[in-house]
């Protein structure tokens, strides 16, 4: 890309530390595929995530969007926030619609990268079949799942991505039950098991990491998958101004491991230098409020969630030691600035 070359020229011979980041960013015309002025809730992380994905992937892309918040808040006819060709069909067929788009561009000899956008309901649950089919047929599509861990568009119901013990309107906390009884589906492993060239998780709290993963995924010819953890202030019950903080806590506690898998093998992780207790993440959200009751059951569930986070840290080897500039505490500062470091 010529933009990247220009940027390299600007910074040639300088170390990253010498670069005036603000000036550099000013000169870097980022592609805005999703314009402002849409109708997302205050603090919606999905809106931010979609903008970041398009910044990194656009503009030679076309989007197949599943039904969900993203579709609803960006396209109230006759308005649209999309600056890329965009198609919404149904809740459960983004993978298949993207497959068709990709097949059409391929047969026409065009180099348009197809992106499929869906939430966790359209990915983990009802749209899982078409996602699996898309990957199995090896379509050249980047499938992005914006994971807000529930059916937020219909009023906060549980999905198979809802974390264990979280309260939703269909997994409410009450005297007999403490929120969702089941574990969050490990979609990444399932996707990765499809001979998957590239599958990764990302978080809105780490935008440069997210962009880097989008660029990596777009460069791969074949199916790629990106799971972006996207807090939903409405559904999670946190202050809309704190979405990024909440997203960051999810990563820092080990609840949401940021990893990359290529052909099913772990090839990249974001280490956690000092893992924080899961309660730091849980206590800022109303959906986990019932776990802080002074009862043996609640305490047991908190221990359970801590164990799940510890398990993530263990299996992905996230516990970094020493002052690694790539680790969680420093990553965003160090990598902010765009393509050169990301």
């Amino acid at each position, binding site marked *: 890309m010529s933009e990247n070359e220009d940027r390299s020229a600007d910074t040639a011979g300088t170390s990253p530390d010498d670069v005036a980041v603000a000036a550099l960013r000013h000169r870097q015309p980022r592609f805005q595929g999703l314009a402002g002025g849409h109708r997302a809730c205050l603090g919606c992380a999905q809106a931010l995530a979609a903008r970041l994905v398009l910044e990194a992937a656009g503009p030679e892309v076309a989007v197949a969007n599943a039904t969900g918040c993203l579709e609803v808040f960006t*396209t109230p006819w006759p308005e649209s926030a999309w600056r890329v060709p965009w198609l919404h069909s149904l809740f459960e067929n983004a993978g298949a619609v993207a497959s068709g788009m990709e097949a059409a561009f391929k*047969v026409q000899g065009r180099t348009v990268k197809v992106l499929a956008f869906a939430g966790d309901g359209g990915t983990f649950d009802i749209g899982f079949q078409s996602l699996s089919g898309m990957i199995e047929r090896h379509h050249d599509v980047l499938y992005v799942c914006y994971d807000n861990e529930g059916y937020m568009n219909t009023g906060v119901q549980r999905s198979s991505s809802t974390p264990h013990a979280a309260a939703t309107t269909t997994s409410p906390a009450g005297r007999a039950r403490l929120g969702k009884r089941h574990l969050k589906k490990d979609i990444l492993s399932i996707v990765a098991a499809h001979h998957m060239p590239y599958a990764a998780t990302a978080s809105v709290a780490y935008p440069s990491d997210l962009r880097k993963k989008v660029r990596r995924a777009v460069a791969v010819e074949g199916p790629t998958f990106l799971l972006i953890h996207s807090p939903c202030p409405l559904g999670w019950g946190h202050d809309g101004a704190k979405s990024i903080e909440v997203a960051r806590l999810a990563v820092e506690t080990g609840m949401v491991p940021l990893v990359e898998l290529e052909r099913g093998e772990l090839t990249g992780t974001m280490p956690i230098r000092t893992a924080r207790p899961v309660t730091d993440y849980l206590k800022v959200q109303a959906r986990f409020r019932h776990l802080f009751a002074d009862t043996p059951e609640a305490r047991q569930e908190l221990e359970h969630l801590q164990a799940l986070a510890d398990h993530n840290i263990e299996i992905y080897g996230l516990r970094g030691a020493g002052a690694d500039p790539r680790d969680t505490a420093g990553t965003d500062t160090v990598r902010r600035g765009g393509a050169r470091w990301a």
Partner: protein
Amino acid sequence: MQQALEGSQAIARAVALCRPQVVSAYPITPQTHIVENIAKLVADGALACEYVSVESEHSAASVVLGAAAAGARAYTASASQGILLMSEVLYNIAGLRIPLVLTCANRALSAPLSIWNDQQDSMAVRDAGWIQLYCADNQEAVDTTIQAFRITQDTELPVMVCMDGFTLTHTLESIELPSQEDVDRFLPPLRFTRALDPARPLSLGTLVSPEWFTEARHSQHGALLAAAADIEAADRDWAALTGRAWGGLLEVDGPEAARIGVLTLGSISGTLADARAAWPDLPPVRLLRLRAFRPFPATALRAACADLDTLVVLERALSPGAGGIVTAEVRAALYGAASAPAVRGFAVGLGGRDVPLETYRRAVEAALAPGGGEFAVLDVELDRLPEADRYPEAGPRTVSPAGSESPP
């Protein structure tokens, strides 16, 4: 060139002549031979297209939706449960005004499971907003498939070509396949003005609030009605090229003097036409065949029925608890016409029940019988059922001319 081809094979060849760029399908009886034959043409290099073998009919419809939206000429085929599984997407394809062609190898719906022919599958999605064309034989199915590709791009409405499963799909017939040159002359390259293109980004399938939804449906309804002219034009132009015309929207055949009409859809019409010679003693009958079911050719139907006393509708789809789907629509179309005939509806040939020549005689006798019910299943054998299930209003007793218990 005239050649003996199985119906499915002929359809596959006809599709290939239309140069689809993306074909996506999931196998289902009795559609399977069509998509198998297309896959083989692709494998042999005889057809250059992206053949997407999907994991379900839902995805087959979704893939062709995406492909056509991205500007490719797209095709799929299905039947029965497959049509139902993709029905959600079929509505979307039509609502988004995406041009593509689907062959429905008509088959009964479960339960009970039947792989054999009737037309409840395509009737189940009659309101999806697709153009629906029903074919009488395999030559017509071939010609209609090619016409469908032109109609779909002229109207930007999806077209469903319905052909009776097994009766047509699995029958060897002598078929005149048009030349590639003729098809190329007839079918201009696809130009979909709303195709997805980064140079001209459009948002398709947006959220529409009540202040716009009515307008969207109004436009869709108008487009379907206006498509009647495109269907007739395609048939006319095809006739100019090949000498074969299929009646446009409604095929009418029979003597001027006829006071009795028999209306049907699909392959039964051939049986009825052949049966006329078998019973020369019966009064003259006008045979009407609905070729287009959507858009519904109400005007043509009224004209064709103007001098009839009775019109018998034979249909292979039953709306349980209501009666005949086509019967109801025919009645609605004739209601208020100056001299509308009495309409008698019969379900026949459900789930692959044979429709013998005898059906013609029974239909004519029913038309001649005074009174008679609104709707009945003509070929049900009541003595096979327990007494409690022999609903008189659904059985043949109310329409039998002699009022006898069992059909002659």
